[in-house]
């Protein structure tokens, strides 16, 4: 089971065939995303019901309702007629939902679900996300334009203005984490937080900026202007029905989950318990944690499956807590107006993000001793690893061989 999963995650079984490997990674991302989104939609309904004195969906699926309810909804939408307004621009109208949907699931590729479970640990990791997350706005703009409906067009224009504005503070908040951990690889960023837990504290302001900008990026209340039901009927997706609407819907919830997962990954220690897990593994379970690291990189085969599953659970719990906070915000706050949204983005959030970046850079430079030769990350970080928590190398003061000094792959 363990080997199979490891192979699956790393796509090695297929004899190194790059095409098959890529397909495997894509399939894996898609499956994870679909399953997760089914649960997220159900959760959204339950959480909103809880906040609003309602019960929420209870009839479908019995105890499996948390998956089957959304599945039933999707199935219903699948059987609906796929309408296209007479004046709509045919092909753009048909293609737009997938332009929004594809990036939403492509981003899942870089999520570190557990220490060794990453669909594809890309070197440029977070940069890849920044690139991919810029695509949906294109799909939304096309959907709004092609629908031949003024409400849709207004929604699309709002969306273009909003998403482009908030990508900048979002990027700057991400940059703060990247700067501090000295790597773009999502897996390495989590490992850095794992071994240097106090770094998490330094990125807390960035987390707030990230979550605020993230709310705007995934267009949730108070930033749900592209849809804005009470103003624009349904915004850019007014004219969509059936499965094409479901695709937009799916992409939206997938993005909500992803933004929470990314917040956890970059700022809240990802799958780790900030080194506590490592301490427990060594002192409570008496596992040979030293064997988990070879030249600073993790060895998947050496880590017990239970540990990986535990990390996965930690990651999921953290993500759902963040997601729950996003839902709480959504069902409590009213919606901002478009000019207020843009003003807030450019005049408040962007300066805050810049100030935060400056602060983090200064702290980073202060932490970096003169002549420090570790590329990319403050070398002093290695020395402040909690006693008995870090990998043996770091605890013994052997900075050269410690994983902390070389978070990336060798």
């Amino acid at each position, binding site marked *: 089971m363990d080997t199979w999963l490891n192979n699956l995650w790393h796509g090695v079984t297929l004899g190194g065939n790059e095409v098959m490997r890529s397909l495997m990674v894509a399939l894996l991302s898609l499956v994870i995303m679909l399953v997760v989104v089914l649960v997220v939609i159900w959760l959204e309904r339950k959480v909103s019901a809880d906040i609003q004195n309602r019960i929420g969906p209870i009839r479908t699926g019995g105890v499996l309702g948390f998956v089957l309810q959304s599945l039933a909804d999707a199935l219903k939408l699948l059987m609906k007629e796929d309408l296209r307004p007479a004046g709509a621009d045919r092909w753009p109208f048909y293609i737009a939902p997938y332009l929004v949907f594809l990036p939403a699931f492509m981003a899942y590729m870089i999520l570190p679900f557990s220490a060794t479970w990453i669909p594809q640990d890309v070197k440029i990791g977070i940069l890849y996300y920044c690139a991919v997350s810029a695509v949906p706005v294109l799909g939304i703009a096309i959907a709004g334009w092609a629908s031949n409906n003024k409400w849709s067009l207004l929604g699309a224009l709002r969306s273009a203005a909003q998403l482009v504005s908030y990508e900048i503070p979002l990027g700057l908040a991400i940059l703060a984490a990247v700067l501090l951990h000295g790597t773009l690889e999502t897996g390495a960023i989590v490992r850095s937080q794992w071994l240097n837990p106090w770094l998490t504290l330094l990125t807390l302001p960035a987390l707030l900026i990230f979550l605020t900008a993230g709310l705007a990026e995934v267009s949730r209340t108070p930033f749900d202007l592209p849809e804005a039901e009470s103003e624009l009927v349904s915004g850019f997706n007014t004219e969509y029905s059936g499965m094409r609407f479901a695709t937009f819907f799916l992409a939206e919830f997938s993005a909500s989950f992803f933004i929470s997962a990314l917040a956890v990954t970059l700022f809240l220690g990802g799958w780790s318990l900030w080194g506590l897990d490592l301490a427990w593994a060594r002192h409570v379970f008496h596992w040979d944690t030293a064997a988990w690291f070879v030249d600073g990189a993790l060895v998947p085969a050496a880590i017990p499956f239970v540990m990986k599953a535990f990390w996965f659970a930690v990651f999921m719990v953290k993500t759902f807590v963040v997601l729950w906070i996003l839902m709480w915000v959504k069902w409590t706050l009213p919606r901002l*107006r478009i000019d207020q949204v843009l003003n807030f983005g450019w005049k408040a959030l962007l300066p805050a993000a810049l100030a935060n970046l400056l602060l983090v850079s200064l702290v980073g430079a202060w932490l970096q001793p003169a002549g420090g030769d570790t590329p990319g990350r403050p070398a002093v970080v290695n020395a402040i690893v909690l006693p008995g928590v870090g990998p043996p190398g770091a605890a013994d003061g052997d900075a050269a061989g410690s994983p902390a000094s070389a978070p990336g792959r060798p």
Partner: protein
Amino acid sequence: MILPAMPEDYGTTVVSMGPQHPSTHGVLRLMLKMDGETVLRLVPVIGYLHRGTEKLAESRTYTMIIPYTDRLDYLSAMYMNLGYVLAVERLLGLEVPERARWLRTAVAELQRLASHLLWLGSFALDLAATTVFLYTFREREIILDLFETLCGARLTYNYMRIGGVMADVPAGWLGRAADYLDVQERMLVEYENLLTGNPIFRARTEGIGVISGADAVNFGLSGPTLRGSGVPYDIRKLEPYDAYGEVEFAVATREAGDCFARYEVRLDEMRESIKIVRQCLEKLDGLAGEVQGRAPRVIKPAAGEAYARVEAPRGLFGVFSVSDGTANPVRVRFRSPSFANLCALDHMCRGVKLADVVAVLGSIDIVLGEIDR
């Protein structure tokens, strides 16, 4: 009608908001001439809910008209009943028993509470604060239950009668109503916690849809929309009907004239309504007597005319009734507060953003059943 035709209209769009739109509160259509998201002009198109109530009234007897008035402002049907029966009572010169007068005042104020609760919920919903809507409906449900035990209906009550009310309260009703008032007082704080101090809510309502006191009077506005502009005009004080002359309450006003002022006025009014109902319940507790006055079996008022006006939740509701001595009125005319309030919408909305139109429309609280009649 406001299609871009002139050279200066170049670059503007006309958007038809409604009649199928989530925020037009019924079947209202707003023609918006917009420059991007900014509203240049607004023309309300009404009539989608016209049922000819005034014409129908001419071929019905006086008693048969009461249920039709339920369908005017269906969110405050008690008040529509009340305005109409007051007019006919004045036509007849009929005395209403004391207990009936107090009962009418109690249910009328409960109706105001129910109506304002619905308004608060839908106003918050217009600003996308969905949760408040379900909270206010929770309390409104208690009032509807009270009304149901009182007259059997939850929306169109047909409770008021010429010369009194349909029936006395059932056993235990006064106590239940008193319990409800306690709950409502606590819950008002909850709504305020969600909205009043919320910076987003304030940003969306303060300084939006401003209308000065003078303009408000000139447009013929009434109710909370007028009082939000600092004009303390309330028929309950100026021309007390039923038991309003004998209860103590304050007229809530605000100076700002924006959406937030109208919101605050309505919340204050809800607190005052709670006070009024409390006084009514106390009085009713020790008051015995008839609830139906000595109205003739077949109502044939002497030839003449009568006008009655009441302070309905949305403003001044007037009923003008003309009799020629037969069993059917010659003419019944309803003065609808929502109609006058809607007419000022263009004035309030020029230069605001599209999203503000929804907020302003929500803040003047219209009911299309009463506008179209």
